[in-house]
């Protein structure tokens, strides 16, 4: 049935209605941040779509991994063996150093560093919105992912968890314009802030004084100051330092160490007990009291 005279509200009324809804949503989501938990549920709701959209890529990866020649496999295998040998040797050294570090720290009566737990995740979709740099990974609250969890790849820091769904979650990258990481120069310990610039290969550093000892090629590592990222992971390499002394501050740009444009496998680090947004509220209290008890014991 296709009526000539339409029933229901006119297009103008509908437009005003939906624009009003949009304005409300934008206000409450952006200014009040009152959709944080709803976002988690929405993320879970749309994750089947994301998994489906990812299948063509998965198929291509599957075929390409299954169609490698014997020769290639042999070469790769040899490479891995060599790598393993190197890493084993380094791991042996690391054990000794860890023990030594713990002993020295106990001598200095400074708190011992807690062991960092790791979890491997895979990228299932890359955000196609040009205004923000985000990716979606295949781990969610069910695997113990929590908001603000640091994410890295094999080379360096990639970003942190933004929204958590049940089976997938969203990562904001360090190159996003609204993201910043507290870093220090590895060479001399100079503290900086690495803010995203919206370009995938550039981080900017504001408010660096003219007297700062920084030069192109310096490695920037996390300083652990914000409490989000653990200390000492590489973030970026300084790519450009302006030597214009008429300005108040030096302009410093750096390039992320992690290969942000070709991410596939990621590591999620966790130091504390995961706080699930889907879990009952009683659990939170228990973990809080645990923390209090621990701090008391430590004091």
């Amino acid at each position, binding site marked *: 049935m*296709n*009526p000539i005279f*339409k029933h229901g509200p006119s*297009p103008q009324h*509908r*437009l005003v209605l*939906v*624009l009003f*809804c*949009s*304005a*409300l*949503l*934008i206000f409450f*989501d*952006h200014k009040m941040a009152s*959709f944080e938990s709803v*976002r988690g549920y*929405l*993320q879970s*709701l*749309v994750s089947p*779509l*994301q998994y*489906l*959209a*990812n299948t*063509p*890529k998965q198929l291509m990866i599957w075929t390409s991994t299954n169609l490698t020649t014997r020769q290639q496999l042999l070469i790769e295998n040899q490479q891995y063996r060599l790598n393993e040998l190197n890493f084993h040797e380094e791991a042996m050294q690391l054990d000794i150093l860890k023990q030594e570090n713990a002993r020295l720290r106990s001598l200095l009566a400074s708190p011992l560093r807690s062991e960092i737990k790791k979890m491997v995740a895979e990228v299932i*979709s*890359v*955000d*196609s*919105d*040009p*205004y*923000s740099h*985000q990716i979606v990974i295949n781990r969610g609250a069910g695997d113990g992912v929590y908001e603000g969890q640091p994410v890295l790849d094999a080379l360096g820091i990639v970003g942190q968890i*933004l*929204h958590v769904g049940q089976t997938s979650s*969203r990562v904001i990258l360090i190159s996003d*314009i*609204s993201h910043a990481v507290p870093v220090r120069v590895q060479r001399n310990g100079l503290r900086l802030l690495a803010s995203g610039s*919206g370009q*995938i290969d550039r981080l900017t550093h504001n408010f660096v004084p003219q007297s700062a000892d920084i030069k192109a090629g310096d490695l920037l590592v996390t300083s652990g100051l914000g409490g989000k990222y653990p200390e000492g992971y590489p973030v970026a390499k300084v790519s450009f330092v302006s030597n214009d002394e008429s300005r108040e501050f030096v302009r410093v740009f750096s390039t992320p160490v992690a290969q942000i*444009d070709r991410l596939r496998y990621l590591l999620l680090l966790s130091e504390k007990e995961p706080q699930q947004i889907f879990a009952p509220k009683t659990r939170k209290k228990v973990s809080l009291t645990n923390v209090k008890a621990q701090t008391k014991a430590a004091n």
Partner: protein
Amino acid sequence: MFAHNGIIIFFTLLIALMASIMPMPLNADAFRPDWVLIVLMYWCMALPGRVNIITAWVMGFLLDVLLGSVLGVHAAAMAISIYIIVENHQKIRNFSIWQQALITGVLAALYHLVVFWLQRFLIDVVFLTSYLYPVITTIVLWPWIFYLLRKVRRNFSIK
């Protein structure tokens, strides 16, 4: 919505949503056409009684969730672009396919600019001309999508 094979409309929109988040190489990603907008435009022109501004807003909202932008931004832009189609659907129906493609381009540009303005208002993003590259691919895509969806509509006799 689901009478007279209306479920097919729902499926085409779902596929469009999937196409707009499908992972692509970084160079091709800048040229990703606005799948959801283009499919919505066809259905609004062909069946304005079935697909309307509310549908467009809901699809935009889903895009917001999928893309992780501030909720309501893509929804508002989508609703505004589709409103223009709904108001003028009888005129646009009679245009030739290339004139329609040009209108599609104008609307896609409007859509991207509205999204940009809202984002600019919320977070300080800078305008790059690459934000308007999808307009080109959208114009090129329109005739193909038009004939494809018309075939689908006639085949399943969606009314």
